[in-house]
């Protein structure tokens, strides 16, 4: 089975662990690449520098609060590139007010996801993400 290339842009190592655990628990076919700040994320997406040979992600998990370049700036870069723009993307944040502010990007409502407080919550979150990705891929194909 072909693995889905996932780029997780997240500086909180705890959340990375919880997300990976939840992916494992949910049994999703994801290969997760992690970058820990916005600038690196942009390099990765444009395959610059040390990411020259990296795979093109099929799903982006973007934390809004990041060092160097924050999530919104990364999102701006993605929106400017027609190819990157097509990649299904989910915004994650622990703050509901931050998510509210990011609604100006007019992404589908399922993209705005609050980081849950429990492991079980993360499992549910990742299942919701996969459902969204599946729907997006299907729309792309049609």
């Amino acid at each position, binding site marked *: 089975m072909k693995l889905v290339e996932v780029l997780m842009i997240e500086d*909180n190592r705890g959340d990375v*662990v*919880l997300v990976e655990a939840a992916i494992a*628990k949910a049994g999703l076919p994801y290969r997760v690449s992690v970058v820990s700040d916005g600038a690196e994320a942009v390099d990765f997406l444009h395959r610059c520098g040390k990411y020259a040979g990296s795979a093109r992600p099929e799903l982006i998990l973007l934390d809004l609060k990041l060092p160097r370049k924050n999530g919104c700036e990364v999102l701006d870069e993605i929106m400017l590139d027609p190819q990157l723009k097509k990649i299904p993307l989910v915004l994650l944040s622990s703050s509901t007010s931050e998510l509210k502010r990011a609604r100006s990007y007019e992404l589908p409502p399922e993209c705005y996801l609050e980081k849950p*407080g*429990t*492991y079980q919550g993360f499992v549910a979150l990742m299942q919701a993400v996969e459902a969204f990705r599946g729907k997006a891929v299907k729309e792309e194909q049609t």
Partner: protein
Amino acid sequence: MRLDTRIGAGFAAGIVILVVVGASAYVSTQQLLDANRLVRRTHEVIEGLERVLSVLQEAETDQRGFVLTGQARYLEPYEAASGQIQHDIDTLADLSRDDAAQQDSLQQVHKLADAKLAELQETVQLRRKSGLEGALPVILTDRGRKIMDELRGLIARMQARERQLLDQRNEAASAAASRTIETLVLWMPLSLLVLAVAAVVLMRTVQFGGPAAPPIAPGRKWAGVAVQYLSAVVAVAVAAALRWRLLDSIGPLPLFITFYPAVLLVASIGGAGPAIMATVFSALAADYWFIPPYGSFRIDAPSDIVAVGIFVGTNLFLSILMERLRRARWAEAISFVQEQRLEELSQLNAELSQQSEELSQQSEELAQQNEELQSQSEEIQKAGTELRRLYAEQQTIFNSVPAMIWFKDTKNNFVRVNREVAISVGKPLDAIEGKSAYEVFPDEAEHYYRDDLEVIRSGQPKLGIVEEMGTASGEKRWVQTDKIPFRDERGEIAGVLVFSVDITERKRLEEPLSRLAAIVESSDDAILSTDLAGVIQTWNAAAKRLFGYRAEEVICRPVALLLPPEQIDEEERILERVRAGQRVEHLETVRVTKDGGRLDVSVTVSPVKDPQGRIIGASKILRDITERKRVEETLRQTAADLARSNKDLELFAYVASHDLREPLRMVTGFMSLLKDHCGGTLDAKADEYIGFAAEGAFRMQGLIDDLLAYARVGRGEIAQSTDVAAVLDGVLRTMAAPIEESAAVITHDPLPTITSNRLELTQVLQNLIGNALKFRGQRRPEIHVGARRQADGWLLTVRDNGIGIDPQSADRIFMIFQRLHTREQYPGTGIGLAICKKVIERHRGQIWVESRPGVGSTFCFTIPDQGTGQG
């Protein structure tokens, strides 16, 4: 030409002519003398030459005699001859010194004479040595005869030349003599003629006919004449002595050289008489001493006679001329004096005419005065009439004045009173006039007299005495009395004039006014009034306290005095409103006190109107609000501080709760992961521990969320129009599940629309209804939401029939995180009522609880009408 100048000119002309004539006479005479002397010298030369020849001939004769005889006696003349010839030749050389030709010839004569003498000598010697035979050959050579012949010829030539010179010189002498005579005879009369002409001209020019002699007293006149004649004698004597002295140095010829000045001097001092005398004396003296033959009055030389004649003639003429001049000068002096007199006279005349003019003017004035007197007399008559009229008028006025007038003497007697007095006293005039005050006012007389005496002693009026006075009707009236000292024509105080006005009515009318004035005066606010130009008219005690100015310092000064310079036009704006009939109320502004301090005042200004309703000024009430302003300022600052610290606190709460969530999420996240990961692999105790930790973390999560909610209160607008019924509907919809679960019955009164923050009111109702459901007892919950209108807002209540609250805890329940029960009994953090309290207080309302445990609780809160009471 002035007189003196003319005289001077004439005089000078005469003198010049005289000097010229004299000089030429002198020169001619001198030439004559020189010529004579030369003639005499020529004669001497001829004689001298003759003698030289004869001496030599004698010497030759003697030589021959000796040679022939040999006798020595022949030699004597011969020996004398050589000395004689030497002497003669020297004399001749001297005499012919100015004739070079004769000098040369003389030289030759000298040589020939010497040669002759040498030849003679030689023969004499030979004769002596060798006798006649020896000498004879020499003589026979005939040498001696040749020398003699030569000498004889030479001398003859010289003599011929001298004779020729003699002729010439004689001719020159006779020419000089004739010239001298010519000068004296021809030129002298001519010069005299010229002088005479000059004199005639002069005398014509000079004014004659002046007084003969200066006006001098007779005694003095004789003394003066004596002195003049004596001076003539002295002058002549001095002149003679001087001439004698000068004789050696200048010779006899300018004969009268010293006498002329003497005569002139005398003529100028003494006039004609003494001058003529001096002339005669001078002529005599000169004749006697200085004209040959000396020592006698005889005159031989005709030239001397002429000189004396000229002297006498000239001086006589000069004397007369001087006399004339003296007289002319007198005449001039006198005419000057006369002129001066004339001038004085004319001046005097002018003065006299002026005086006469003044006199006529005075007479005119007198006439005018007379006229005035006439008219004055008429006026006096008129004045008499006028006076009678005035008296009558005055009497009328005196009796019709609405005041009592009393004229009292210094002894408290009435001299005159007017009719008003008679009416007031109730007695006829003659029962008062001339009577003592003690008779008319037995009771008050002494009291009145005391004031009179004060006026009499001080000489100053006493005004405004207000007192009660009894009247005929027995009624007491208030009168205001002025007492004025009356002075007689000498200025002494003869009595007192008393004017009394009945002021009973006025006093009655004035009473409320004075009460008002007292109120104004005692007011705690500064009250002042101005006219329409802003000039201060009245000033009460509080104004003085507030501003520091005394009334007399500010009345009649502009009210702008109290304004700070930067607001000086404020007064004009106020006055404009006042002129328009408007009031200015509670204008909060700044005024300046006397010492320059600033005052915050509240000013109220109203127009002041006269009885006709015209606006004539402004009344101002100024209240010192400095303290209030200060308090307000303090409050404002406190409020600002509070608001700032509240804001800080809110920010702190928000940031803290927000940032605390993140790590807490890690705790809860990994707790749950741990439980899942190790589920069943650990023992039961471990599972329980993990459970506690997870639960604590979750509770903390809840507390933080609540805190965040609490902190968020106070951000929204509170002036929204809020329909309470709609809000309640929303709440009930939200809480549909627990309501249904508890089967609660919820009712409400008709609910108003209030002004509040809609969301916050929702929070309040949600919390209160939530609590009512949560703390229910065994019974079915019944909840009622009430509303009641109050004076300034709405009172809303939520009443339940739950477990109730112990009244002691009634305050605690509104504090944040305060709970009355365990979490096991009733879950929750205890934030709800704290949020309610915060919301209500933000709306300036109050929240409290009325409760009976076991019966139920009623939560009450008020929402005041927003907008009023806010500013």
